[in-house]
């Protein structure tokens, strides 16, 4: 459904994303893994249309999504309907739960605004739809009536997911969407996302550095290093039998049971030890 071909992004002389090609099938779940600066977030932002690609193609259901923001803005001036149609293709949940909601807007109102942008509904059906979305992500009436600052990080991220789902997108991009949350809350949100994927058929694109989360949520994964894809395959295969040395290093750096923290010692200090 989503196809990315030879995607490239340059910032001046620096190549952030280099020749990235992959596809995400309908109802699929793909994780892009890599350390900070590997170009995974830039890739996601280009796919969403928040960043202009320097080259390459992004296709949704075989149709070119346009080379990104600048050109997009010109077209938006002509047709805001097209803009919304793009919104129904791809939505995104951001890393920082504290600033991904307008701090002056109540959670229910934020979701209602998103719904109203995509469906002309009478007031009572709008309310029902908002309640349905909030219920899907596990937020109650009291939380819907609250300002974001009254909610926890996990609750805010649920609200952001509900807002994104209001557009009924075909693809949901999660840009480190659970990285800022407690481990137990992370698990809740990941379960919620898996549930949403099963119920609505929304394809998920995870951007993450957390290999543990990938195991639970994704079918396929690709590993990026310095803007390039270095490994690509089903999650189980890649994790069990990593081919590229970078992937092996990533996997080795995940704390496991029996993991003992060890400080790197400089030789002089080591020599002084008995």
């Amino acid at each position, binding site marked *: 459904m989503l196809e990315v071909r030879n995607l490239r992004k340059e910032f001046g002389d620096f190549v952030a994303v280099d020749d990235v090609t992959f596809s995400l099938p309908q109802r699929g779940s793909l994780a892009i893994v890599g350390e900070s600066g590997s170009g995974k977030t830039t890739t996601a932002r280009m796919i969403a249309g928040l960043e202009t690609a320097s080259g390459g193609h992004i296709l949704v259901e075989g149709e070119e999504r346009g080379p990104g923001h600048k050109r997009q803005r010109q077209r938006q001036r002509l047709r805001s309907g097209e803009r919304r149609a793009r*919104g129904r293709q791809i939505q*995104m949940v*951001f890393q920082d739960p504290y600033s*991904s909601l307008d701090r002056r807007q109540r959670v229910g109102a934020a979701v209602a605004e*998103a719904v109203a942008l*995509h469906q002309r509904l009478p007031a009572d059906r709008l309310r029902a739809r908002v309640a349905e979305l909030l219920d899907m992500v596990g937020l109650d009436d009291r939380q819907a009536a609250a300002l974001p600052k009254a909610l926890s990080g996990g609750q805010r991220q649920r609200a952001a997911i509900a807002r994104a789902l*209001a557009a009924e997108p075909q693809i949901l991009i999660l840009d480190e969407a659970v990285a800022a949350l407690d481990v137990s809350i992370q698990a809740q949100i990941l379960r919620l996302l898996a549930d949403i994927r099963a119920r609505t058929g929304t394809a998920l694109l995870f951007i993450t550095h957390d290999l543990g989360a990938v195991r639970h949520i994704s079918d396929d994964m690709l590993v990026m290093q310095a803007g390039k894809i270095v490994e690509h395959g089903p999650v189980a295969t890649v994790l069990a039998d990593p081919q590229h040395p970078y992937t092996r290093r990533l996997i080795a750096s995940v704390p496991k049971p029996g993991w003992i923290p060890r400080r790197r010692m400089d030789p002089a200090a080591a020599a002084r030890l008995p």
Partner: protein
Amino acid sequence: MTSALFARTASKPRAGRPRDRVTLAAGCVVGLFVFLAVCGPLLVPHAPNAVDPLNVHAGPSATHLLGTDDSGRDLLSRLIAGTRASLAAPAVVIAVSTTLGTLLALVAAWFGGWLDRFVSGALDVVFGFPGLIMAVLVAAVFGAGLTAPVVALSIAYLPLITRVVRSAAIKERNLPYVSALQLLGAPTARIWLRHLLPNLGPLVLVQATIGFGYALLDVAAISFLGLGSQPPDPEWGLMVANGAPSILAGAPQQSLYAGLAILLVVVAFNLLGTGLSRRLLGEQA
């Protein structure tokens, strides 16, 4: 480290604390003068321009609470009647510069690139030119009267508002919730009016409040120099100038009271502005 942390928590402003009482008092003073500016002409005990040649430089008395000036005009009536002229000019300056400045700041922050560089550069040029001198220059060219200085000051005050609002707007514009709205397909106008402007509102209000005090001082200075309001208008800056010769005659009341009125309003606006900033922007600043 820990003690510093506690100290910050402890000094967090709360209702009833001394600093808040200062803000409240400043707000009351501002409110009183705004009330006088609106209703002043109905409240004056004497006609502000009625001369009484037999009763010049009179001290305080039951009929003239603050005494009279060099023409025997009642000073209290003149101060009250002058509130409107003294506050209206800076109000126009601040209204124009705040509206234009916020708009410029939003445009620069939203579109970025060369447009932002152009706006910032142009404002730096304006900022480099002292506002009062610009106003005096304009008044000298176009003749005395408040219109020309008010226009000049409105332009001179643009950078004060725009710079602060622009940097806040850039920060705001880069928050993920704006990206989320764009991805949902929300029209830009909606994002501006429903999200960016309301979130920048408190900052704009604080800047306008503090700016008002300075603008009032500048307008009074222009009138003091004889380039703004003209006699016999009871504008405060003009009254300070008119009263100056009488100081040597042993009757400082006209300059004194008009100067005190200016001082009181400027200080009140400043305290109100800093108080509002603490309350409205405290968590962000």
